[in-house]
């Protein structure tokens, strides 16, 4: 557990996960999958927080992860509720189908 390379590699892993999540947001057209990719990005960030918390030897990073999780839960609940509402109106889940806000 005190392996010094862990922290560094964990941050690298978080970077990769964050990058994959970001890519997913652009690659996938299904709204729900996009939301899941956002969760993936958040998890990448969480991992970075935990790793830095470990490196710094303080718990503040973990407390932040706690709050990120709370916000993620709220985001998922509201996001999925919106998805359900959208699906009811348009009968599709394609992100590109929803563009009423165009200028």
């Amino acid at each position, binding site marked *: 557990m005190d392996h010094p390379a862990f922290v560094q590699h964990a941050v690298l892993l978080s970077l990769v996960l964050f990058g994959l999540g*970001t890519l997913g*947001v*652009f690659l996938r057209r299904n709204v729900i999958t*996009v939301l899941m990719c956002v969760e993936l990005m958040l998890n990448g960030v969480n991992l970075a927080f935990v790793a830095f918390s470990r490196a710094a030897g303080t718990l503040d990073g973990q407390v932040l992860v706690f709050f990120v999780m709370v916000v993620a839960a709220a985001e998922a609940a509201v996001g999925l509720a919106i998805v359900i509402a959208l699906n009811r109106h348009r009968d599709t889940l394609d*992100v*590109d189908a*929803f*563009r*009423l*806000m*165009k*200028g």
Partner: protein
Amino acid sequence: MHELEALDRVLPFAVLLLPLCGFVVLSLFGEWIKKDKEDAGAGYMACGTVLVSFGLAAWTTARLYGLVGGAEGLRFSQPYLGFEWIEAGGFRVPLSLLVDPLSAVMMLVVTGIGSLIHVYSLGYMAGDDDRPRFFSYLNLFTFFMLLLVLGGSLPLLFVGWEGVGLCSYLLIGFWYKKDSASAAGLKAFVVNRIGDAGLILGMIFIYHAFGSLDLVDIADNAGALAPEKLWEIGPVSVACLLLFLGATGKSAQIPLHVWLPDAMEGPTPVSALIHAATMVTAGVYMVARLAPLYHQSATAMLVVAVTGTVTALMAGTIAIVQNDIKRVLAYSTVSQLGFMFLAAGVGAFGVAIFHLYTHAFFKALLFLGSGSVIHAMSGEQDMGKMGGLRKRIPWTFWTFLAGTAAISGIPFFAGFYSKDEILLGALTTGHTVLFGIALFTALLTAAYMARLLFLTFFGAFRGGHDLEHHVHESPWSMIGPLVLLAVGSTVSGYALFPGLGEAGARVRLPEVVQPVFRLPAEAVHHVAWLPAAATLAAIAGGLIAWYLYLSMPELRASARAALRPALRIFEAKYYFDTVYDAFVRRVVVEGSDALLWRRVDAGVIDGAVNRAGTVASALAQALRPVQTGFVRHYALLVLAGAVALVSYLLWS
């Protein structure tokens, strides 16, 4: 003993809050209480709260002097409600009250006279539809006035100060359907604002000097300040002068006296309570309360004295030529307030409070008496249409006579004693000129009051047959307070009170409140000829009026012709209203119209808003295509921004 002490902390708050409860109940449930036109439930409720409040105030005062529950008494107490009203940094204002001899006197005057006037209003307002509103305002006024005199710090005093101003506005404009009433209310409000600005600035100066706005702190520390000589304008003088500006507004002194005569548009009990007995004396109270501070500034003292004297004289001269019964009384109030400020200005603060206290009795009596007359005359206020009412409304006449005697300074009536002390104070402190003017004003006072009396109650009735037919004596709810006040106007001048000195010693009012001012005790040199001179002046004034109005009315025309230029100035009220009107019209209204409205408001402010709108709209039009509606395009922009930011942070 312990219970009593606990009670002492609470009772002053009860005195204060009872009228407020009355107000809350009446304003919320007033319409519900008033079931029909004759029902006086609202009035009883209001009277009840104020009467109980008076009882509690009397108890508190008794405790203060150790009359009940222990020989020691309180002497001085500062009940504290236990929480802060304002606490910001080092600035704190606790919700504390101050009960000392001065505030005790004021508290008794406010609740005592106040409850008499409440009772009087039961009869006077019997026919009005809006009684719950009237009584709720009256209760609210009582609350704010009590807060003003009991508040333990300047901010609390200021809250009361503004509150009574508000109630004054509401009650002057009580008959809001009458244009002149609303206008008068507005005038009172606006003129008072000018004074209030001075009061706030004065408070800021005081805070700067003392680091506290607590009245006791100020009194304790004022002595440590360096006294400022005449024409030396130091911080104390500036603070005192600014506070005095507030006092001139509230107490109707030149140059802010113009609102008080107009305030007579309100119902007569209001004029009696607010514009004669209590609210307008708030300025005197404030100056007396800050006596230790004023004492340090010779300039401020002189300004106070001169303003008071000049106001007394001018108001007295104007009163001579007025024909409206209430306006005569209004100007006489202004004049008497001038006397009080003269007393304060020459250092006789105790005497100022003494005159305040006697004045409260006889001026309330006079106003209520005039109200009774107006009631009898079915609302007519012009003295030109009265006359010979002596026989028709005897109770009103005799009580009114007592009041007139008191204000004119006839010996053995209250006003004689207090006015004598003021003159004595002016004389012994070497203000000979002011003394002369004051003595002459005393003569004027007797003259215009006698004129009022003769025009109203003597001679033949001039109001026509129909009006004469309706003249009737007022109901007991109105006569009762008149009688009580008449007794007060007679005996209050030589009534003795237990002093703070050695136990059992009875002293007169000035000595009662003297400890509050923290002034060095000075031996009073009585001037043997002064009472005689004052009496002579009063009798002379009365005789002049008697000659001109009763004995030889034909002399009046020639006297009028001889004094024409002076009378014209008096009738024009020294052109104050004209000048103010011209100033307001020319500078304020036209300046606002031409510069502030057309240039600043329409040009700069509106222009800026409109231009902002146009610019935003044009920008939006230009940026519209960026909004594709595709979420992922937005996300891409966010990502690009993030990458740019990270690159900048990493490689810069």
